């Protein structure tokens, strides 16, 4: 393999994408924490990395895991009293430069997580269900509702 590039080069090239994906996956408020966790984990492992063929894929995989960790940790917390629709109002304001992920970030939490885990993290329904602490059917429904809503927004 060729020598690993300076880690800064990975940040310069991929930090914005990782942030956008995380905003979609966990919402703007929690994306910052996941972003820090993602890059600290990457930095820890980086010198031992034996395959530099797809550094972007490697970073996004770490980001997906951090997003899943986040949802699992949230799943164990007491359910918020607010109804999902009330919560949707306090999540995020879409910003134009985030593109579709901004719209994903504005979905209600369950739908948002399902869409991000499915399409950003490429997880199967069973794993999305495990990450969200719900049944595979419920995960499928959240995903379906999320997609429907995105289609409407984009139409």
């Amino acid at each position, binding site marked *: 393999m060729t020598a690993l590039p300076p880690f*800064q080069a990975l940040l310069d090239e991929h930090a914005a994408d990782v942030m956008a994906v995380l905003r979609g996956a966990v919402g703007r408020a929690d994306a910052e924490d996941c972003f820090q966790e993602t890059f600290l984990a990457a930095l820890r492992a980086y010198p031992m990395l034996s395959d530099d063929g797809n550094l972007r894929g490697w970073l996004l995989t770490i980001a997906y895991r951090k997003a899943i960790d986040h949802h699992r940790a949230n799943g164990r917390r007491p359910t918020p009293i607010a109804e999902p629709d009330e919560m949707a109002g306090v999540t995020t304001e879409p910003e134009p430069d985030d593109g579709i992920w901004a719209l994903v970030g504005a979905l209600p939490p369950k739908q948002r997580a399902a869409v991000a885990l499915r399409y950003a993290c490429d997880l199967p329904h069973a794993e999305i269900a495990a990450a969200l602490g719900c049944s595979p059917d419920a995960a499928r429904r959240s995903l379906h509702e999320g997609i429907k809503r995105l289609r409407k927004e984009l139409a």
Partner: protein
Amino acid sequence: MKASLEHLTERAAAEGLLDVAYATADSPFGSLLLATTPKGLVKVGLPDYDSEETLEDLAARVSPRVLEAPARLDDARRQLDLYFEGRLHEFDLPLDWQLSRGFRRRALRAIDRIPYGRTRNYTEIARSAGNERAVRAAGTACGSNPIPIVVPCHRVLRSSGGLGGYGGGLPMKEALLELERAEIH
């Protein structure tokens, strides 16, 4: 995003994951690249050199955990500014010598002891490094100096009094010698 990246750099440093911090610094000769390890200043890249290549070299030879972290180089930048203004005669910076070994490192340490405004020739450096006949090797050591300006290889001349060489170009070497001469007289 900028705040996120700054925060990341701080946390990386706190967790001992910032092996090489770098920044650029202005100089009268153009932009310098400064790099430090937790041990000390490890590299000064002169204006004629490609920063990207220098960083790749540091990633390969020191550690790939290379991050832009200007705050870590504030002190070095401040001292260099004062030096270029003629107001600082001796750098007080921890140095990391890991990019030089053996005879070269001994030669560079000898160069590091040449006082401000003074010069030595390559033979004297070879002698200080433990091998008076290794004059050519002393010249190579100067040429490979990873920390120029701070380790003042510009103060090494030919025995004949000729300028010898300089990585940043002979006009830069001449200008540094001129600056130092002006300040001590």
